[in-house]
């Protein structure tokens, strides 16, 4: 039987991230009998507040308080975890930019198995865990067998294990700060530079016409702008459009961009990666235009149009204009 299950808790300004609850749910899916232990690192009152908060959903909460941990620097936290975790630990971490930073190296240092970006678990048999992952930008899924005999670090995709809310388990906080020991600082956190604010605030818009790589060329952005104008909407986009410098960063929807809550979202030539969809909240009416009928965006869209957007969008624009 696999070892003790742990969950690393991410938090901000003294409040646990949604993933704190999602990891409890994920642990239950791995093994219904598991009672995961929360690990919370940091310093001072924010740390205490989060430890107390997560006692509602974790029976045991390990607290590590140290000034060097004040900012969550994965390079330091990894050293700490290697010292304090049992050899066969199964560690759950949210697959965000912190989890991407921490986990692969942690698994190597613990000599355990790393399982990245898991979207589902399908049972544990002995030491073998069957998990579901996605490949090729979510176009196909795979089952993987993971060997947990030496423990594992498992990164869980945020948002997929929807939690029902804290269970009120009334757990206890165990202060483990004395076990921290010496920490080596080969990567030193300096500051966080906030993303630039642009000319429009897409987070406040009701209707967005969003363009992805399918727009193919900078000159074609106009096609989306004309459609947006006809609809009374604003243009937003996926990451490759910003990488190519065709639109400003402030118009990017997704985990590394803006979180938007429109009523209507038109996705033109966007495949529907989880990083993109992670920025789309509030259950909007989604229209997807994509020439690939297998594009993952069609799984989340309400209405799909399997066409070349460069042909379809101008027709739509014209028809809307005619009707006005």
């Amino acid at each position, binding site marked *: 039987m696999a070892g003790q299950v742990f969950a690393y808790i991410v938090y901000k300004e003294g409040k646990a991230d949604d993933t704190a609850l999602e990891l409890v749910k994920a642990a239950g899916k791995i093994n219904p009998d598991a009672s995961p232990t929360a690990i919370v690192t940091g310093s001072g009152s924010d740390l205490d507040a989060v430890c107390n908060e997560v006692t509602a959903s974790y029976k045991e909460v390990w607290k590590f308080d140290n000034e060097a941990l004040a900012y969550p620097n994965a390079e330091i936290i990894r050293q700490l975890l290697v010292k304090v975790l049992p050899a066969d630990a199964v560690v759950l971490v949210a697959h965000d*930019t912190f989890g991407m930073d921490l986990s692969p190296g942690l698994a190597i240092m613990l000599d355990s198995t790393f399982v990245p970006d898991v979207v589902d678990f399908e049972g544990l048999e002995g030491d073998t865990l069957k998990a579901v992952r996605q490949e090729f*930008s979510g176009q196909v899924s795979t089952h993987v067998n993971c060997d947990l005999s030496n423990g594992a670090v498992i990164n869980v995709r945020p948002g997929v294990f929807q939690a029902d809310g804290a269970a009120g388990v009334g757990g206890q906080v165990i202060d483990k700060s004395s076990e921290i020991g010496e920490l080596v600082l*080969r990567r030193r956190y300096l500051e966080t530079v906030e993303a630039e604010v642009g000319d429009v605030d897409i987070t406040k818009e009701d209707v967005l016409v969003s363009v992805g790589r399918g727009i193919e060329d900078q000159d074609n952005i106009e096609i989306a702008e004309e459609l947006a104008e006809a609809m009374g909407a604003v243009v937003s986009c996926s990451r490759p459009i910003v990488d190519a410098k065709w639109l400003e960063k402030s118009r990017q929807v997704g985990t590394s961009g803006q979180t938007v809550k429109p009523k209507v979202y038109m996705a033109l030539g966007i495949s529907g990666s989880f990083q993109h969809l992670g920025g789309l909240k509030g259950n909007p009416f989604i229209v997807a235009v994509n020439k690939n009928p297998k594009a993952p965006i069609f*799984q989340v869209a309400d209405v799909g149009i399997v066409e070349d957007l460069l042909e379809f969008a101008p027709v739509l624009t014209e*028809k*809307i204009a005619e009707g006005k």
Partner: protein
Amino acid sequence: MEILVCVKRVPDTAENEIEVAADGSDIERDDLVYSVNEWDNYAVEEAIQLVDKAGGSVTVVSVGDEEAEEVVRREMAMGANNGLLLSDDAFEGSDGKGTATILKAAVEKGNYDLILTGALADDGAGQVGGMLAAMLDLPFASVVNRIEVMDDKKLKIGREIEGGNQEMHEIDLPCVLSIQTGINEPRYVGIRGIRKVASVEIPVWGTSELGVAADSVGAAAARVKRLDYFVPDLGEGAEILEGSLEEVADKLIEMLKAKGGIK
């Protein structure tokens, strides 16, 4: 500065419809268009720009079959100085740790100040850079979207985190960084560039050249084993509108009006 950039040849998901093969054991690979992994291309561009400023050389390395040579050559056409292909039947079926084990051996045969990987590749794992750093006992940073050389002992780097905010760090050299897209604008590679490197010899190293034990890599050593590929049945999905462009537009306009999508 001596820089090693790890690159992977992948099916281009922007160009291909990925389909599961009939028996579910693989995807249909016959008609796929392959290219260099998008993130890796940014990493190579960054390495070239760093060397342009600070001197040194860029080596591009790929773990793969003989066809992976084409992406190594392409990145050399971009301006990388050296290429290296790590290929052996024993490498087949490696998991992330296996790939990192192979790369580690290649790193140890050189003398690199900086090792770059892409933040992510076609398997969506984003694991090789972090694993490689841990195996080499070097500092690591992921999703890097800015690199500034401070002196020959350290870099100032930015990590692009949630919300597009940038987390700035100082990191000791040598180190391993995984690169995020958008860090630069990768240069265009023309036919002339490709021609220039067409006949350059690219060394191929296997287990014996690398000193890697065959049973420490490949399918047998993998602790994460892929069982199949499948397309999940996710309920209803979108209602697909059919008809001519005009008919579809008319139907959509009615729906948009009902939902407040046309003001």
